[in-house]
């Protein structure tokens, strides 16, 4: 072991190694969010409007996701999905090597599955803050339900949802670090692999720390800007 406590050179080199995992981490975050947003919103509507079967399904789904650790969800889905696929592929005689599927695809499925459940609750609470009268007013001037939601309800709902959406996004970015469990080439895995060579784990962990922190701070800042823009109408001064 080196005489100094921390190997500065390794620390700096590995920082860039960790940084090189950012694109994958962001890709997983953006794609999972893009999938989870519409699903979460739709399921939130089934809860609010108490749609018979879907409402119940959503409740169970949300409880399940919230009540289990993400890492276990990853392990379960990572084992279950290949089994299901094998079944399907055998039935339809598709010849595809299941165990060569890029872990990226698993990551998309797992993290959107997880995030959609979180977003159900984010949207449900935000939708409740928009007064029923807004929808009635939209109907009264001849808008359809879809038009009313797009133009009146969603823009107002988003303002309330923004802080929680920001939290959900940041949690998702951090959760992608669990992708190392399925060999996803993201920040944590890359830095850890670099550390394996000379057992410089402390340096690697510090680098991982810093990279996530910078990433999350940037995202936080962007959300703040966006929130300000969306809520112009609330704080407009006479």
């Amino acid at each position, binding site marked *: 072991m080196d005489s100094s406590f921390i190997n500065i050179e390794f620390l700096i080199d590995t920082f860039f190694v960790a940084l090189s995992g950012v694109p994958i981490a962001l890709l997983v975050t953006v794609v999972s969010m893009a999938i989870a947003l519409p699903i979460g919103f739709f399921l939130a509507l089934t809860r609010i409007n108490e749609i018979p079967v879907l409402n119940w399904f959503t409740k169970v789904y949300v409880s399940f996701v919230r009540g289990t650790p993400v890492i276990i969800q990853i392990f379960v889905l990572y084992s279950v999905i290949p089994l299901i696929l094998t079944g399907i592929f055998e039935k339809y005689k598709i010849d595809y090597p299941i165990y060569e599927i890029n872990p990226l695809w698993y990551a998309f499925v797992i993290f959107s599955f997880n995030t959609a459940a979180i977003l159900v609750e984010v949207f449900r609470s935000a939708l409740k803050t928009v*007064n029923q*009268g*807004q929808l*009635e*007013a*939209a*109907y*009264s*001037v*001849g*808008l*359809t339900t879809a*038009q009313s939601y797009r*133009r*009146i309800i969603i*823009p*107002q709902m988003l303002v309330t949802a923004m802080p929680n959406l920001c939290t959900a996004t940041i949690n998702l970015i951090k959760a992608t670090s669990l992708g190392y469990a399925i060999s996803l080439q993201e920040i944590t895995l890359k830095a850890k692999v670099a550390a394996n060579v000379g057992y410089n784990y402390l340096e690697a962990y510090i680098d991982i720390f810093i990279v996530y922190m910078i990433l999350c701070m940037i995202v936080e800042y962007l959300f703040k800007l966006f929130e300000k823009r969306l809520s112009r*109408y*609330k*704080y*407009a*001064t*006479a």
Partner: protein
Amino acid sequence: MLEIKNIHKSFGKNEILKGVDLKIDKGDVVVILGPSGSGKTTLLRCINFLERADQGTASFGEINVDLKGASKKDVLSIRKKTAFVFQNYNLFNNKTALENVAEGLIIGRKMPKQQAYEISKSALDKVGLSEKYDSYPSQLSGGQQQRVGIARAVALNPDIILFDEPTSALDPELVGEVLQVMKDIAKEGTTMLVVTHEMGFAKDVANKVIFMDGGVIVEEGSPHDIFVTPKEERTRRFLRRVLPGEYEFEI
């Protein structure tokens, strides 16, 4: 022009409307009076399908619909012939005064933006808000908000405007400006159905007054019929309560 027959509506076991008939001709200003809980607001909301009636029919110009089973298309076409002014204004919070007024024209009626904004501006001018085109609802007083609400209804050029207690949520000193705007548009020949507690407005502006109680129409007639020579005891009792002093001399 608008004829409603035998409208029934219950909320759970509570029957709010127990068979109401209503006929309104073009240019009429009809005021509905009655104690709270008498079904006035529910009647108005059923006409615009903000509530689904349990029974009843409506004929609206050439459109005839069953109020209970009306299709989405019928609902939309009736909503496009009517406009609604809400007790709590219900302006779109995320839109400026001008956008509030133009929304129904641009989106609901697919009018070109330019034209919609011109109509909306003149509607806002009419209610005395030429200075407030770009203000958001949060920047307006209650009276101003309700005037935007009225402009939003007027701009649609509907066959009838439904007013649901338009002054009830206002501070007393702001009631006058809203009533004045309503008088102005009534003078222009707008057909109006108004639920209100403003007896002065009913007396001066209405050409027909309806007194409702317990989910039925108790009595209807000209303002003179209702305020000076009411026939029903229930009407008299109500008027005594809302017009103390003034009314007793007329018995």
